[in-house]
C-alpha cells in the first residue's frame, strides 16, 4: 500500500497543503485507482517505447507577437491578487 510519507511527498511536489485525515483517505483511494489502471500493463500488442512521439509533428510559426503590445494588459493587471504601480507583487524569494 502506498505510504503516508509518499502521499505527503507527492502533495509537497504538487504544492498542495493536505490535512492528515485526507492523507489516510487518499492512501486507500490511490491504491484502488492504481490497482485499476495497472491493467495497461496487460494490453495486448506491440508496446513500443516511442509511442509518445510517433505520428506527432511540431507546428511551427513565426516568432512574433500574436497580438499588439498591451492589448490585454489592463484586464490582466486587474486580475492580479496584489500589485504596485501595475507590477505584480509577490513575496520575496531570497
Amino acid at each position: 500500500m502506498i505510504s503516508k510519507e509518499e502521499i505527503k511527498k507527492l502533495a509537497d511536489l504538487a504544492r498542495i497543503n493536505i490535512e492528515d485525515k485526507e492523507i489516510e483517505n487518499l492512501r486507500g483511494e490511490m491504491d484502488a485507482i492504481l490497482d485499476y489502471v495497472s491493467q495497461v500493463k496487460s494490453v495486448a500488442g506491440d508496446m513500443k517505447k516511442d509511442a509518445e512521439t510517433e505520428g506527432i509533428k511540431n507546428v511551427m510559426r513565426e516568432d512574433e507577437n500574436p497580438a499588439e503590445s498591451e492589448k490585454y494588459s489592463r484586464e490582466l493587471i486587474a486580475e492580479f491578487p496584489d500589485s504596485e504601480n501595475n507590477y505584480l507583487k509577490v513575496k520575496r524569494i531570497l
Partner: protein
Amino acid sequence: MIDISTLTVKKTRKLLDKKEIFAKELAESCLQNIENGNKELNIFLEVYDDVLKQAENAQKIIDTGKTSELTGIPLAIKDNILIKGKIASASSKMLQNYHAAYTATAAQKLIDQNIVFIGRTNMDEFAMGSSTENSAFGVTKNPCDASRVAGGSSGGSAAAVAANMALGALGSDTGGSVREPASFCGMVGLKPTYGSVSRYGLMAMGSSLDVIGPIAKTVADAEIIFNAIKGKDKFDSTSMEGKIERLKEGKIKIGVPYHILDIEGISENVRKNFDEAIEKFKSLGFEIKDIKLPNIDKSLAVYYIIMPAEVSSNLARYDGIKYGLSLNGENLLDVYKKTRGEGFGEETRRRIILGTYVLSSGYYDAYYGKAMSARKIIRDEFNGAFKEVNAILTPTTSSPAWKIGEKTSPLENYLADIFTVTANITGGPAISLPSGQAETDGKKLPLGIQLMAPHMSESILFEVGKKFLEEENG
C-alpha cells in the same frame, strides 16, 4: 411567453426570420424558465445581466434580413469557456471571482453570429467528474428527476437545454463530459474530432483529450452549432480544418463490439434499450456487424493515467500569484500550498496528486509510458475497424442517471466513463443520441446510445443520427 419546449434551433430560425417571434421575447422566455426552475435545479451559476441587450442587438440584425443560422438563438455556455469581461470560474473556489481577459475562439464565433449567451452553467470543478457533484457551488439536479444527477462534467449545459432555459449549449468533453450529461438529460451531445474546434479560451484539463462540443435537442441543431464553432485557429496550433467526409453510396455498416457489453456493471435496462436500438438501425436499412476491438476494455485505465498526468501539469498555473484565489502565507511556498490546498476541491486535489505520482521518476515508464503505448494500440485498432464499418455503436453509459450522493468512491465514479473515454483516447468524433427511457421509481429516466466515426467524419454521425431519431430534412 414562448413555449421553448416546442422549439428547436432550426424551427426558431424560421420563426425569427418570418417575424412570427422576436429575439427579445425568446430570451425573456428562457429567463422566465430560469426564474422558475434554477433555484431548485442549480443549472446556471450566473445569468448574464446583458441578455436582453444581446437580444435587442440580434433583433436589429434580423430586421436587416442579414441573419446567420444562429442569430438571436439563446445558448448557454459552460463555466470553463471564456468570454471577455465575464466571470469564468470552472466551478472552482480558485476562480470564483476571475474575469476573463479574452474570449474563447468558439464563443467568439457564436458572438459573431449574434447569438444570445444566457449565462454560464454549473459543472464539475475544472471539468473533473461525471455528475457535477464536484462543483464548488453545489450539484446540478436532473430536470427529469430532481433526486438524480444531471451528469457531468457539462451537467449544467445539458440540464439547461433539457429544462428549456436555452435552445442549445456549449460543453467541453475530455472523457465523456458532453455525451454523458446529454444522455442523462435526454439530449444530443457531440464530442467533435480532437482539433476540429479551437481550444483557445477553454480552460485546459487534459490538453491531448479536451474538445469543446455542442449539446442540443436534435442532431440537426448540434450540427448547426458545430459548424459555427469549428475550424482552424492561429491561437491553437492543434486545431485544423476538416475535409468533409461524406458517406459513400450503398448500405451503411455499423460495427458493434458486442464483447464489451459482457463486462460487469451494465444495467439491464441499458442492455435492453441498446438491443432495441440495434433492431431499429436494422429496420432503417443499416447493416450491423459484430466487430472486435481487443483492447477497448483497457481504454479507461489508459485514460485515468494520461488525464491526471495532464491535469497535474495544466493546473500548476493556479498558484495564487497571477490571478484567482490567493491566500497569504509566511513565504512564497506557503502561499502556493495554502492557495492550492484550499482553492482546489477534493477531486481536483486527488487527480493532481495521482498525476504527480504517475509522472514521478521510477513510475513514469510503468504508468505514463505504458499508457501512451496502449493509446497508440487502441487508436490503431479503431483505424482497422473503420476499414470495415462506417461507424461504431455502443451505449453512452452503463446506467441511467444515478441518485445524488449514491456513488461514494472515486473509482466508482470513474467507471461511469467506460464507454465514452475511448473517443478521447483515439481523438475521433462521437455523438450521444437519446434512445429511450428506463422506468425507475415511477420516473422515466433518459438513456442514450453512442456512435463513433473516423477522424473528421462528423458528417457520418449527423447522417446516421438524423435517420435514427427520424428527424425531418429541410
